[in-house]
């Protein structure tokens, strides 16, 4: 069907396709690509402990200092918390633009998960501390 081309030329271009498809670089990324947990290993450990100490259906206010930018609050810190605390409602203490919502700290049903962040003044009752963070009751 395509035999009117020289077999050696067909073999050559076919070989380029096969070798090109077997480029080892992409598959090599499986082990190393996108592992932000490696940068802050204590953070997922903290969230795992928070998950063990909060019931399904609870609301958890998240206060973390990780700033803006590609690996910032609105991306890694928040969605990692949402993933590890699935089954609970996770709401950020501050919006991606940095606007703080202190009123979110003062709902009786809330937990506050603060990681490497001092909480605003108030008598927040700690439940547990570890891995650089504190889990507290929301209502002072």
């Amino acid at each position, binding site marked *: *069907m395509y*035999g009117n*081309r020289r077999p050696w030329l067909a*073999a050559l271009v076919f070989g380029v*396709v096969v070798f090109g498809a077997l480029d080892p670089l992409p598959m090599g990324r499986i082990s190393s690509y996108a592992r*932000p947990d490696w940068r802050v290993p204590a953070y997922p450990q903290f969230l795992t402990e928070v998950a063990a100490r909060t019931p399904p259906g609870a609301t958890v206010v998240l206060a973390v200092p990780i700033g803006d930018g590609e690996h910032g609050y609105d991306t890694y810190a928040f*969605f*990692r918390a949402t*993933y590890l605390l699935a089954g609970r409602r996770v709401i950020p203490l501050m919006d991606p633009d940095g606007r703080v919502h202190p009123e979110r700290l003062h709902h009786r049903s809330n937990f506050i998960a603060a990681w490497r962040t001092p909480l605003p003044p108030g008598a927040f009752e700690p439940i547990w501390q570890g891995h650089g963070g504190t889990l507290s009751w929301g209502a002072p």
Partner: protein
Amino acid sequence: MGGTLTALLVALTQIVVTGLPVALLLHRRSAPTRGGLLGLSFLLGAGVVSMILLFLSMAGVPWARVTVTVAVLVMAVVLWVAAAKFAAFGATPSGYTWLDLPTLALLGMHAFLVARQSVGEWDFWAIWGLKGRVFYEHGAIDWAFLSDPVHAYQHPDYPPLLPLQYVFTAVHGGGWSDRWLGLITTFFAVAVTLVVREALGRALPRWVAALGTLAVAGVAATHWVGMAEAPMIAFGGAGLLSVREGKLPLGAVLLGLAACAKNEGLALIVAAGLALVCMGRVRDAFRLWPAALVVAPWLALRALHRLPGDFLMRSFDLERVRLVLDTIVHKPPERPLLWVGLAEVFVVFAGSLRRESFLLLATLFQVLFYVGAYLVTRYDVAWHIVYSWPRLLDQVAVPLVFVAAVMAGQAMVRNVPADVSPAPPVK
């Protein structure tokens, strides 16, 4: 840890057993090979399982091991009864050769690399795995979560087929664990590789078919582990190949499942239809209607819950077109040698491209849809292209590698097997 691997294998078995009768029904007019049938069984079974979970959610039946197992069992019995009545059982030998061993080794290496650790891709945590975990904890599709603007980063409009595979595994494991879920990416790669091997085996001598399959496996075994690239590559590639071979109902269902895996699958249905229309096969284009039927429930639910998408209505902006094209040109593909090789094949066989016009036109239209999507994206254009263009190219690479293998392979050898060339137009 071992328990979650067991759960994954139980889920895999149920998926294949449920998908096999569907594969027999949709493949009944041709002679499938055992390998091809196995690949199709996984793909179609994954679709059936996701539909079952979706309908249980809509019916208000909580996902639990008992409810899900009973529903899958009932569906499997119904499908097997239908297959016994309407399908021809049996499959031909797969015709594998020792040259298929490198493909086996490559897929084994992929499984090994994936299985060494839990899934750790950003988009698994933020989109695909997140939805699976949230849905699993909720016991149903969590529409409140999807609709919550606080969680807009999880792309609420993305279809749920892959998260539902994760849910299916978690249901069997009795709890969520992402330790082994990456292997689902490998399963999709294996499935499409088996389907392609069957198609190449009909068009080429065994040793050339094996080498072509090796190239396809190199693309299908994606490093985007845990993300919907693997199912999109698998459903899209297998769907287009099925349409090429004239198996329109099978191809349409697979294309519909591609749309249940990624929004790009919706574009692929249209691209396939347009390709058929351009070839003068208008009736065949309309015969792709099962694709729309498969994805319709999700689209209806998405509209009902008003889940926002990634695109905005924009007026035509020539400067934006220039920016999109300029960024694409300066973003090299991940496997540059592969694309150089594909370009060489298409230049060398330029005079014969019409014979593979369906796959080439469908791929061309799909790439044009990608470019069009960048023109209306709500995100920063350069950012969007840089982070998605390599993945989108992977999505269309399987049919292109297939075409290259058929063209070059048939020119390399004199004794080409009985032709299973692209299906002729329906008169």
